Structures are given as C-alpha cells and as structure tokens.
C-alpha cells in the first residue's frame, strides 16, 4: 500500500494494519527532515490547515503546528476559549466559515467523544482527530507505536503494559486498537474504578496489580492521572494512588531489562511515574515527542500531498 485512501484520520479502531504501516514508514522518512539545519520542505505549499483546540494542549498543538510549518503548509490556530463558540456559534457553522476561506484540513481537539466524526461528515475538508473526549487520540497512538517500532524494530509479539486510568483515557484506547492490530500483546492495569468494563472485548487482559501486568513487558506505558477524577471519588488520594499504582523501578522490576518507559505527557511526577524512571536511561518520553512531529508530517503528506479526489 502506498496511498492512504481516506479523507480523515479519526481513530485507529477503523484503520487497517496496512494503513498504520504506511504511516509509520512515511514518518520514518520525515524524521530525517527534523535532523536538518533547515527543517523545511516545500511539499505542501499553498495548502491550508486549521488547528481548532477546544481543550488545552501544549505538545499536540505545538507538534501539529510545527509539522505544518516544516511541510510549508499555511495554518491558523484557534483556541476554543477565544472562538465564536463562546458567542453561541455551532461547531459546524464555525468550521464551514473557515472552510470557505480555503482550509483543506482541520485538526480538532474537542471534549465530546465522537465530535471529530461529526465534523468529518459535515465538511469536505480532511479532519484529523487530535483527541475527542474519552474516545480516541489517534495521532498519539501512532506516535507511541512509531517510538516503539523505531526502538524495537517491530511491533509484533511485543508485550505492552499500559498502567493508570484506562477508563477515561483516549490515549489508551487508541494504543490498544493500534497495537493489537499490529500484532502486539496489550495488557492494562489500574484501580478497578478506573478500568472500563469491556476490556476483554478489546482483546486485552486487565490486571489490578501493576506488578503482574508488567511481568516480562517490552514496553511500560504510564497514563496521566487526571486529578479531577479524585473529586468524583474514583480514588481516595494522590498519595494512595502513587503508593499502589505509581511506576517506580521497584514496581516494574519484573519487566524486561530493556523495557521502554513511556508517558504521553503531561506528567505528574511522583504520582503515576517516579522521576527516576521518567528521566532514566530506559525512558523514551522525549523521543515520543520528536516522533510526534514526524508522524504528523507523515499524516499531512498522506492526506494533503496528492491530487484532490474528484
């Protein structure tokens, strides 16, 4: 496969292993550009992109904006808080107005699950989901897979343990869909209150003890603990969470010696992951960030680089 025959990137659930492989292959070629002194290729000259973020974001937004600049696309970024949404305009109207200004691709982060699917159906421009509610965050899943693939050389047969608030995590969901399609074994661990009910249906084994889940793991991925979950009574205190589920060298002693330590950011140091692990030699947390730019450049090329479909 050498062409991505789709208008949008909404989630990894609907994507095939062949498509994921094409994206990762293309991202590898893009990564070379990031090592150049002049980080710019002329490929997307004259193409326009809108970044629409209805939720706070540092990494994802910066990463998308840099990817657009490195590919020579023109872009505008609108934060939800400063948009006409606060004046009561609907999402569809907002985006349709920007579309007639010539935007060919919309990158959107939105607190409502399924919002990017809705948007994709409403407009002709391509839509890339930059995180929709508790549903998916496909570009994060792709960059996590890219980081693992670059380090390990393959994804098949790897054991990946994802630890933390699985239930509310779009990052976990995208990783589970993507990694299992690529032939990896995914296990999850976290407090029962933060575990979804349908884990087995996703082909994933769930544990309540982190030590059991990480046994023999090639990759250990911590998820950010959203502190607001404490207020809803899903776990008693940050300290208790850290004591039982926080990743430390001792807790993951059963993982493989060369296991990669990952975190999608932003990190709560000392809560879901200790600084010793986050800054240690096995950590690829900053590599994930670099890989994110390459993956987003690849997606922009694959969606916008060719001729427009008739």
């Amino acid at each position, binding site marked *: 496969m050498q062409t991505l025959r789709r208008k949008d990137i909404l989630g990894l659930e609907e994507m095939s292993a062949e498509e994921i492989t094409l994206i990762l292959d*293309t991202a590898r*070629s893009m990564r070379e*550009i990031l090592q150049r002194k002049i980080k710019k290729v002329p490929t997307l000259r*004259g193409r326009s992109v809108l970044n629409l973020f209805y939720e706070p974001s540092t990494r994802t937004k910066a990463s998308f904006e840099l990817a657009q600049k490195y590919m020579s696309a023109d872009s505008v970024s609108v934060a939800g808080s400063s948009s006409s949404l606060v004046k009561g305009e609907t999402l569809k109207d907002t985006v349709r107005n920007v579309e007639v200004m010539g935007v060919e691709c919309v990158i959107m982060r939105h607190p409502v699950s399924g919002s990017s699917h809705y948007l994709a159906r409403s407009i002709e421009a391509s839509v890339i989901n930059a995180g929709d509610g508790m549903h998916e965050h496909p570009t994060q899943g792709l960059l996590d897979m890219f980081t693992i693939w670059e380090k390990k050389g393959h994804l098949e047969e790897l054991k990946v343990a994802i630890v933390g608030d699985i239930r509310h995590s779009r990052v976990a969901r995208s990783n589970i869909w993507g990694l299992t399609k690529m032939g990896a074994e995914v296990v999850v661990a976290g407090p029962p209150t933060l575990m979804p009910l349908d884990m087995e249906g996703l082909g994933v084994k769930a544990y309540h003890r982190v030590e059991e889940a990480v046994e023999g793991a090639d990759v250990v991925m911590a998820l950010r603990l959203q502190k607001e979950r404490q207020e809803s009574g899903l776990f008693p205190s940050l300290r208790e969470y850290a004591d039982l589920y926080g990743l430390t060298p001792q807790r993951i002693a059963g993982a493989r010696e060369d296991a990669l330590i990952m975190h999608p950011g932003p990190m709560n140091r000392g809560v879901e992951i200790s600084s010793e692990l986050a800054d240690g030699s096995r950590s690829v947390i900053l590599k994930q960030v670099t890989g994110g730019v390459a993956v987003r450049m690849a997606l922009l090329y*694959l969606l916008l*680089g060719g001729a427009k479909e008739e």
Partner: protein
Amino acid sequence: MALIHKATVMDEKAIRQALRRIAHEIIEHNKGIDNVVLVGVRKRGVPLAERLQVLLKEIESIDIPIGILDITLYRDDLSQRQDQPMVHTTDVPFDINGRQVVMVDDVLYTGRTTRAAMDALIDLGRPASIQLAVLIDRGHRELPVRADYVGKNVPTSRSEEVEVKVREIDGQDQVDILGPGGE
C-alpha cells in the same frame, strides 16, 4: 496503451564501460576527487552511484562519501498526480558545504527530477558545485538543465520509454527502449 520492446541500447558491458569513463571524467574535471562526494537519486541512481564510488576507489585509492537523495517531497507534480508517491528516506550522512557534489541518476529527460534534486540538495547545505552524472540522456528537456557526465545519448520520441535495469534492483544490467505497439 501497452508498450513493447523496440531496442536494447546498452548491455552489461556497455554500462560498465560508460561508468568507467564517467569515473575518469569526474576525476579529470575536478582535478582529483579529494573534495568530491556522490549523491544517488532514488531509485536507480543509488546503485549507479555506489558503482562509481567503487570505480573511483580503484583508480584513486580514496573512499569518497556517498549519500542517497529522495526527491518525492520536492516534486512539482504532487498536486496533479492521482497516484501519490511514497516518501523514502534521504540519507546524506556528511556535510555537503563546500564540497563538489556529483548527483547520479539513471535517465535525464525533462529535467524536472534534476530540478527537484537540486532543491533537495540545497536544503542540506551549500555545495561548492553540483554536477550531474546520468547513464542515459534521452532529450526533451522542459527546464534549462544539462548533464556534466553522460553514459549514452539516446534520441527518443516522447511516446517512447527508456527502461534502465540494474542488477542490484532488477537482477540484470540493461537499457531498453519501449514504444507503442502496433503499426
């Protein structure tokens, strides 16, 4: 329309001799190869550049650096093509600033690939000069481009195709002209 074989214009021996001659010309033109680097243009320029590197080492006993250029992101026809080309990695693992860069490609035709390759190269630095070596020059330029080193000039019509085969990719060394079939 299916294309049929019309003529074989180079065989293995002719390709070998042409590359050997080009190697000598590179040395002569640059007064030695101390400052010369080779860059193969994907796809078939890469094995040709590798062969030139071996030949230059035989003659001058110097290992000169060799890089690989993928020009996909610099093409001028991306927004017109329905079949989107796959992006491959550019790998030029040395500094090209101030070097005599010899770009190597299999066929020189419209000159558009060469234009893209020059842009790609200049994004990596400022060489002292860029020179172009091709196995086949088939004419029909659409841009003001010429080759410094040519294996063979092959007059063609636009309806024909030049098919270069190299053993590293295609299992044999041969250059054929293909043309429209029928009367």
